[in-house]
């Protein structure tokens, strides 16, 4: 437990030792090679999410975020992604049909530049000052008092991403230093696509715009090697909503059933041959067709789903009171390797704090009540979906 803290502290006294590498890896600010498969990865802006998807987002891949019901947390993650791009000096591309991209960019969270937000897992050590309080805390297991508490927040020890303060907005000076391309659908004139193409006009215009930006910016390797390479970060909030002209979210049998999937196929093809990363959010709670949702997930590389407790009956559940929602990892990519690196724990919950978006393992707190009435987690998760059948309520008798 002591090791992670030490290495976080030692990153401050940066040694002058530089490993001499003759490798052909491109060194772009804000990226590093992954320790798992050597791919070039960028940070998503949320360090817990970086740890979850294997260190970071690989360049050339797509991250799909299935939106929560009121689209608050998924927008936040997208803003973190864009803010990370601004800080690393990457170029940004933001396409939206609902709010103007410039409005979204003014709402980026402010970075915490001076110090990393230190969450102290070593709280036990601080309590030695008050012996009375500390020794009464644990009567039987007092030898374990000074050991740090189990670190449930997922974090890797290297300093790759940045931390942001959600209550403040990013300064305009920092934001304007980054080059941002905007695509606002209502302002785009409707150019007619080929009559039999499965793509909608909005999607084909978007794809053409992305290709244009990549070509002009030299992200696809066409630029002369003298010019320094950079990464393009593409953010696509609320793709597939009715504002894009797609009725995927409104009907069970949509008229343009293959428009979004064709667009994703084209997007991934464009991304694979260029130095760019894309994060898109889809209102999946409106798409009833599981087959379509499965197709969309397969066509993206990384896929996570956010489920917020707001508005559902889980909000008042004492088990979930510390968290804002659950996070499900739907898919992880296999990039140049045979196996994916899946996270160990399947039950993850997230919490948006002021200085950090934490993703933690959901663990049961110790049951300190007199009666032995420990509600098991499986019962909760099942009861919400299927309603209390007599089977699940009968389990309470068997609790020891």
């Amino acid at each position, binding site marked *: 437990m002591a090791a992670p803290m030490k290495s976080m502290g030692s990153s401050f006294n940066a040694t002058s030792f530089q490993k001499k590498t003759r490798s052909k890896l491109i060194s772009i600010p804000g990226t590093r090679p992954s320790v798992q498969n050597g791919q070039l990865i960028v940070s998503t802006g949320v360090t817990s999410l970086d740890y979850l998807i294997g260190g970071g987002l690989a360049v050339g891949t797509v991250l799909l975020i299935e939106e929560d019901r009121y689209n608050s947390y998924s927008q*936040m993650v997208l803003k973190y992604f864009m803010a990370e791009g601004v800080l690393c000096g990457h170029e940004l591309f933001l396409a939206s049909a609902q709010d103007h991209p410039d409005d979204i960019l003014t709402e980026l969270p402010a970075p915490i530049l001076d110090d990393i937000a230190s969450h102290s897992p070593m709280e036990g050590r601080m309590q030695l000052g008050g012996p009375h309080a500390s020794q009464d805390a644990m009567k039987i297991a007092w030898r374990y008092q000074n050991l740090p508490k189990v670190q449930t927040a997922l974090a890797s020890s290297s300093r790759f991403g940045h931390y942001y303060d959600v209550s403040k907005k990013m300064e305009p000076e920092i934001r304007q230093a980054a080059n941002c391309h905007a695509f606002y659908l209502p302002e785009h004139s409707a150019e007619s696509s080929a009559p039999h193409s499965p793509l909608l006009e909005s999607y084909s215009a978007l794809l053409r715009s992305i290709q244009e930006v990549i070509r002009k910016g030299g992200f696809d390797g066409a630029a002369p090697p003298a010019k320094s390479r950079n990464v393009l970060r593409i953010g696509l909030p609320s793709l597939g909503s009715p504002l894009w002209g797609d009725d995927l979210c409104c009907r069970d049998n949509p008229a343009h059933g293959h428009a979004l999937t064709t667009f994703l196929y084209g997007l991934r093809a464009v991304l694979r041959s260029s130095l760019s990363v894309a994060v898109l959010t889809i209102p999946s709670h*409106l798409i009833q067709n599981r087959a379509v949702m499965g197709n969309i997930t397969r066509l993206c590389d990384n896929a996570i789903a956010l489920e917020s407790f707001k508005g559902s009956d889980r909000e008042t559940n004492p088990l979930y009171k510390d968290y804002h929602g659950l996070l499900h990892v739907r898919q992880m990519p296999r990039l140049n390797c045979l196996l994916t690196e899946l996270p160990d724990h399947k039950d993850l919950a997230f919490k948006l704090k002021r200085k950090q978006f934490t993703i933690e393992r959901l663990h049961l707190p110790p049951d300190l009540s007199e009666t032995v009435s420990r509600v098991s987690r499986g019962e909760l998760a099942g009861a919400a979906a299927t309603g209390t059948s007599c089977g699940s309520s009968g389990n309470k008798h068997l609790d020891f």
Partner: protein
Amino acid sequence: MLLELIQGTEGGGLIIIQDSIHYSGRTLLMSFIKAALKRDEVVHLLAFELHEEELKHELGHSSLQRLKFHNAFHDPLGWNENPPFTVHQFITSELDSLLTSNQHSKPVTLVIDSFSFILRHLSPSAVCKTLQQLKKGGAVKTTLGLLHSDMHHRNMVGSMCHLATSVLTVAPGHQCHEAVAKTIRRAKSGKISQAVERFSISDDMTVKVQSKPVPVGSGQGEAGDAEVDPTANLTFNLRLSDQERQAKEKLALPFVFSKEKKSALLRPGPGSGRILYEPDANDDYDQEDPDDDLDI
């Protein structure tokens, strides 16, 4: 929160009233109109499902004069010549020309009765685009409409509510004159607030909220109380009386040291667990080692 929405203190946006066959939201819609007229705002009403006579009966003649009424009930699909208002006129260009006909600088409220009728004849993406443009454009401060949730697919209702700033779901209450309204409001900062309130509407279209707002999810508390006590119905006694509990707490546990010894043990000493070993010749005997019987 319902009263605040009616008074319009929140700054407009798109408000959707979801009703069903069990309770019609039209009276609530009328109370919104009346409150807006009282605030001296310009109110445009697109009435697809309501006849002018009925409206006069409900709202009163004087209010009807001040309201900008667009009769879309007689000929919504334009089958005869010169229809007063058709459903195909629900696009931004036509609506803008309709709404900017007044030169006053008062805030404009657009009331639509109902969205369900429009959604049956126009594609949902076109309707959503128009509503989004109305929300963004400066012409209209508040757009308000009824949506019959049992007439559409659940996802259609969901897509409409995805766009809305506030969604009010009305349902019948326990008493005959009461109804329950669940309000979900999305603030500009992204924060969601919600409340469930019981209300009733009087004859002059004023809304009275009957009780304190009931927080969402209060039904869960009752389920938790019905827990089974596992120490009951047993042939042996698992409970502790007070005396027994005191005796239990007074019991000295093994390995419970005095405070000084505890703090001495807890202090991270230099070598609290040192192993002192002096190498012994006999310890080097290894049965596996073949060189051991060499005599050199």
